[in-house]
C-alpha cells in the first residue's frame, strides 16, 4: 500500500504554473529522492507534502489519510531545511524540544526523548549551546535531530547538505543513510546533486520543469534513462551525445563522417532524426579494430587526471569533444592523436522528442 500518494497534484503561483500535474506513490519505509535542476519544482513538491504550500488542485495522502488540507503539524511529517532554520534564541535542547512542548509532552518524557535523539547524532555535549555557537555541520545535525525527536511517519529533506563543505557532505550523507536504516521511516529527499541521489535513493524521481521525467532505482535511471533529460542529468561526466538519422533500414551516426550503425532489434518507429548517447566509460581509446565497432579519429584536447581515473576530452571535426573515461595510468597526454571507439550495443538512442528508443 502506498504510504504517500500524490494524485494529479497541480500547483501555480499566480499565473506561473510550477507543477502541471504529478502522480506519485511512495511505499512505507522507502527512501525517495527528488532530483532535478534548480527551479524544476522539487522544493515546491516537498512543501506541498509538508503542507507549507496549498495545492492548486489534486490530492495528497499520507498513511492512508487524505491530508490535502491538513495543517503541517497534523501530517505526521518532519522537515529538514537547507538553511537549517534553527531558532536562534533557543538552546540546542529547546530547539529539539520545541515540537514536544507544543504537543504537551510530559517534562520527563521530553528530557528522555531529546537526549535519545541527541545521542543518535552525537549532540549530547552541545545541548546547552545556542545555534550561533555551532559549526554548519553541527547545526544541520540539530536540524535533523529536531526531526528525529518527533518520531514522524515521513521525513522530508530539502537539500539538507547543500550548505556544507564537501567532506562534511559525505559524512552527513552516511549519517542520513544510517538514520534511514535504523529507524526505517519513509524519507523524501530533495537534491540537485546526483551523487546524493544515486547513493541515498531506493528510488529516484527525476524532475524537470515540474514534470516527472522518470521514476526508478538509481541504476535503472543510469542504465536505461527514459529520455534525453535523464540521460544528460544522471551521470558525471555527462553522457556524450551526437546526432544520427534513420535511413532506409539502418541508422546512420554522424560521428565525424556518416557511418552505419547496427542498433539490433530496437524499434525505431517512424523517427527520422535521432540523438545518440554514449557514457564516457563505454568509450575506448585505440582499441583493436573490429568489424562492428564504431570509431572516429581525433585528438586529445585536454586530460583530467583525478588519480583513480582520468577523463580525456577528444575533439573530432567541429563537434563537441567526446569525454572518454580512462584508467588512471593510461599512457596518453594532451595533443595525442587517438582513435575513439564504441560498441553499438552501448549506445542510447533518442527520438526527435527526446524519448528513449529501446
Amino acid at each position, binding site marked *: 500500500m502506498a504510504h504517500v500518494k500524490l494524485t494529479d497534484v497541480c500547483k501555480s503561483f499566480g499565473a506561473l504554473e510550477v507543477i502541471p500535474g504529478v502522480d506519485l506513490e511512495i511505499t512505507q519505509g522507502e527512501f525517495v529522492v527528488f532530483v532535478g535542476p534548480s527551479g524544476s519544482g522539487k522544493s515546491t513538491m516537498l*512543501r506541498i507534502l509538508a503542507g507549507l504550500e496549498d495545492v492548486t488542485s489534486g490530492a495528497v495522502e499520507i498513511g492512508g489519510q487524505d491530508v490535502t488540507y491538513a495543517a503541517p503539524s497534523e501530517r505526521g511529517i518532519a522537515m529538514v531545511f537547507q538553511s*537549517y532554520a*534553527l531558532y536562534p*534564541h533557543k538552546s540546542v535542547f529547546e530547539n529539539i524540544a520545541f515540537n514536544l512542548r*507544543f504537543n504537551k509532552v510530559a517534562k520527563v518524557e521530553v528530557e528522555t526523548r531529546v537526549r535519545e535523539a541527541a545521542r543518535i547524532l552525537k549532540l549530547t555535549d552541545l545541548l546547552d549551546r545556542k545555534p550561533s555557537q555551532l559549526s554548519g555541520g553541527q*547545526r544541520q545535525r540539530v536540524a535533523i535531530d*529536531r526531526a528525529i525527536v518527533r518520531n514522524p511517519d515521513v521525513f522530508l529533506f530539502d537539500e539538507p547538505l547543500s550548505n556544507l563543505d564537501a567532506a562534511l557532505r559525505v559524512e552527513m550523507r552516511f549519517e542520513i543513510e544510517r538514520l534511514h536504516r535504523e529507524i526505517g521511516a519513509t524519507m523524501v529527499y530533495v537534491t540537485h546533486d546526483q551523487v546524493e541521489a544515486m547513493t541515498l535513493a531506493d528510488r529516484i524521481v527525476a524532475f524537470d520543469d515540474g514534470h516527472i521525467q522518470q521514476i526508478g532505482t538509481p541504476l535503472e535511471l543510469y542504465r536505461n534513462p527514459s529520455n534525453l533529460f535523464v540521460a544528460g542529468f544522471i551521470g558525471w561526466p555527462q553522457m556524450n551525445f551526437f546526432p544520427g538519422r534513420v535511413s532506409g533500414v539502418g541508422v546512420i551516426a554522424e560521428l565525424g563522417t556518416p557511418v552505419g550503425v547496427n542498433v539490433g532489434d530496437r524499434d525505431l518507429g517512424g523517427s527520422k532524426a535521432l540523438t545518440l548517447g554514449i557514457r564516457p566509460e563505454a568509450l575506448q581509446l585505440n582499441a583493436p579494430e573490429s568489424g562492428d565497432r564504431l570509431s572516429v579519429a581525433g585528438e586529445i584536447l585536454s586530460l583530467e587526471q583525478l588519480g583513480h581515473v582520468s577523463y580525456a576530452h577528444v575533439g573530432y571535426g567541429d563537434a563537441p569533444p567526446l569525454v572518454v573515461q580512462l584508467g588512471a595510468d593510461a599512457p596518453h597526454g594532451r595533443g595525442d592523436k587517438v582513435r575513439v571507439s564504441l560498441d553499438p550495443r552501448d549506445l542510447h538512442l533518442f527520438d526527435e522528442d527526446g524519448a528513449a528508443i529501446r
Partner: protein
Amino acid sequence: MTFGKATAWAILGLAFLFYATPILWLLLAAFRDEPMLFSSGPFSIGSFEMFGQTWTNLTTYNDFQIGRWALNSAVYTIGGVTLSLVAVLPAGFVLATYNFAFRKAILVLTLIAMITPNTVVALPIFLQMQAFGLNNSYIGMIIATAFFPFGVYLAYIYYATSLPAGLIDSARIDGASRFEVFTKVALPLSKPLIALVAFFSFLANWSNYFLAFVLLTKDELYSLPIGLAVLVSSSGALGNDVASDIPINKPEAIVAAILVILPVLVLFLASQKYVRSGTLSGAEKG
C-alpha cells in the same frame, strides 16, 4: 597617518564641532544667571548656585506645576509607546509573512499615512476625539499618539528582511499556530525592532507638540512641551524686556529645554545596545 585619513578626521571634527556647539552652549548656559548670560562670553561657566536658583524658580512656579506636566508627559508617552508597540508589531509581522487580499493596498496606505504630516490630521483627530468625548483626557491623548504608521512600516521591513522564512515554516511544522509563530518565534527575535520602534515612538510622542496643543486645553493636562511653551511665552521670558513678575526668564527657559531633551538622550543610550545586537545570528547558514 596618511593625508587622506587626516583630511577625513579634520572634516569629521569640524562637523562634530558645528553640530555639538549649540548643545554645549545649552548645557553651559544652564549654569549661568540672566545677567551673566548677557555679560560674559558664550562659553563661560557660571556656578551651581546660579543653576540652583534657576531650578528653584522653575520648580516652585505654581506649586511645582512642571512636575505635574512631566508626569503627564510620561503617562502620554509610555501609554502611546505601549499601545503603538501592541499594534505595530503584529501588523508588521502579518504584512510581511502572510499573503492576503488587499495586503499591497494596506502597505501603500501605511506609506501614505507615514508621509502625511501630523499637523494635517490634527484637526480631524480633534473633531473625532470630540465626537467620542475624548479630548482633554489621558485616554484620548494616548490613543491619538499611538497611531504610528512609520512603526508598522519599520516592523514590516524588519520581518520581511530579517526573519528567515524557514523559521516560520519550521515553527508551523512544529505545531505552532499563526499566533504562536508570532509570540514564540518572531517576538523573541524582535529585540532590535522593539528597541527601534519604541525609540522612535517615544521620540514622536515625547516631543509631540501640535497634537497635544490641539487636544489639551486644560493646563492640568498639559504635557511638558506644551506647559513649558505656554509658561515661557506667558512670562515673556524670551522677550528682551523683562515684562512679568513671574521669575521665569532665559535661564529657566534653557533648563526647561534641557528637561525636554534629557529623557530622549537617556533612552537613546539605553536602547542602542539592543538596536545593534545580532539576535538572529545562528538561525541559518553562516
